[in-house]
């Protein structure tokens, strides 16, 4: 009974392979996709328009692959943090963020992260593994608010571009007619700028893109985000300029504000120069220190000032209030570090 393959996370093409392998008629693939992603069943038994034989054949080798959250924490502001068991005894988190007419789920794309950004809780946990598309989709399906979600952001644990295959697959499932049928405009994927994978994302999906900038300056960004050694923010912006994103697709830059570090007039000038003429917006984000962090968040007044300075330069910025702080559910704050067992057989 163990180790059955999950159906959740399979694209229509992959489901066609599955039914072909079982000797079932080709149209069964669309029926299964419908049960998985539209009717959202949690057992093969519920796929009642499939013949009994087809269901038995499927159940012999496959399972749906739904996992219920193993823990839920609710913040005073209504934000909820869901903990899910992923494969190999690992855990991931998703954050549900209700606002007036928007109900957003912030999903994880990896277990931990390899990118080691200085300000990030997930980064502090190191990397434990990749999530399958089904494990990403499961986060949307298995929460209490599944049916009222209006938006999804890939800003939880992990760097989506470092798991690009599975992330693209999950996006295909969310936006296809045979899948959730969502408009890609309801989805925002973040990246620190892994250029080759970011290009694939731009070319192969239509979802919005949010780039984590955090500093326009090489020497400074390098110390906040090791990725800058390899793919500089200048090159990321240069790559973005090659594409026509049209009117509908949004490019935004995330900018966490650190007191005395990246909140000066020089930074306003640096950002202006970097983004010169680009149609985008900048999200200024309040930083809430993570344990043992050398960084402090800029004050609200400073953030207002910074935002005003940017708008004087013709750049649109918004100040994002942080939600769910009391349960550590803000972006960059998701971590299951306490659940990670340290490898005793280490080389350092």
């Amino acid at each position, binding site marked *: 009974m163990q180790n059955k393959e999950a159906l959740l996370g399979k694209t229509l093409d992959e489901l066609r392979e599955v039914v072909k392998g079982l000797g079932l008629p080709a149209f069964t693939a669309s029926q299964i996709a419908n049960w998985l992603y539209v009717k959202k069943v949690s057992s093969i038994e519920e796929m009642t328009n499939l013949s009994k034989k087809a269901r038995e054949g499927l159940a012999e080798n496959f399972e749906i692959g739904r996992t219920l959250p193993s823990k839920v924490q609710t913040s005073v502001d209504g934000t909820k943090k869901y903990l899910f068991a992923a494969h190999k005894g690992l855990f991931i988190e998703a954050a549900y963020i209700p606002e007036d007419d928007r109900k957003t789920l912030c999903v994880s794309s990896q277990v931990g992260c390899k990118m080691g950004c200085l300000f990030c809780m997930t980064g502090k946990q190191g990397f434990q593994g990749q999530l399958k598309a089904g494990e990403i989709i499961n986060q949307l399906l298995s929460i209490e608010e599944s049916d009222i979600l209006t938006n999804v952001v890939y800003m939880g644990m992990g760097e989506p571009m470092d798991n690009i295959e599975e992330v693209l697959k999950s996006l295909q499932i969310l936006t296809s007619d045979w899948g959730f049928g969502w408009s890609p405009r309801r989805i925002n994927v973040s990246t620190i700028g892994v250029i*080759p994978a970011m290009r694939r994302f731009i070319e192969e999906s239509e979802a919005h893109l949010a780039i984590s900038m955090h500093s326009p300056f090489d020497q400074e960004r390098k110390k906040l985000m090791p*990725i800058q050694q390899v793919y500089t923010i200048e090159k990321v912006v240069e790559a973005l300029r090659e594409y026509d994103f049209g009117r509908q697709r949004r490019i935004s830059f995330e900018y966490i504000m650190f007191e005395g570090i990246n909140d000066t007039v020089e930074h306003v000038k640096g950002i202006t120069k970097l983004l010169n003429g680009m149609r985008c917006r900048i999200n200024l984000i309040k930083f809430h220190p993570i344990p043992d962090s050398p960084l402090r968040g800029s004050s609200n007044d400073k953030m207002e000032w910074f935002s005003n300075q940017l708008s004087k330069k013709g750049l649109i910025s918004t100040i994002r209030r942080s939600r769910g702080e009391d349960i550590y559910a803000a972006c960059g704050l998701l971590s299951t570090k306490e659940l990670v067992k340290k490898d005793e057989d280490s*080389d350092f």
Partner: protein
Amino acid sequence: MSEPVRRKKELKPVRLISNTEIKSGVFVIELEKIHDFIPGQIVAVAMHPDDDLRLYSIASGVDYPYLRILFDRVPDGQLTPPMSELRAGDTLYVTAPFGRFTKTPENSWWIATGTGIAPFISMAESGEARGRTLLHGARYSERFYYQELFKEKMGDRYLRFCTMEEGPGLISGRITTFIKESDEIKPENKYYLCGNADMVVEVRQLLLTRGVPFDNIIAEIYF
């Protein structure tokens, strides 16, 4: 020099000069050198122009006639298993060198585990080891790649931390213990870390705890 952007034209076919399995599962390949580089830089590599790229630190000195790469074979990896099978005369696709983990000042500290030693091999072979200190961590004594080079260039400023074995010249124990306890960790020095994320993140945190400002910690992560 530019970062690769997954465009075919950026990949150039180069001839493989040699491929040696220096330790079980760890390989050194030498390639025809078609560009100059700065020690600490990387190249992006693919078996075929349409494949996804993988990044590798250049592990040879600037005056060495070939371009050397030191790599681990990742069992279910896309690139490293076929790359480990290459023979002299075969072709590999490589970009121009790029990356900014370079120009470590004198008195800086280099900290590496595993193949994360690669950029420091390039620096040491290019005459940039003087005044630096290298902390290298490995499980077994045979896994201190290029130890003869570092012994020669750095003498007693080359410290090998072996976690699973004892042996002559080795410090048995962890780099992390040393960083926690040593009087030599000074906030004013620069620390250059290279290796996997777990090492970088843990060592960086310990350095911060020892009072090193984050400005003085520069990391290259093999993501």
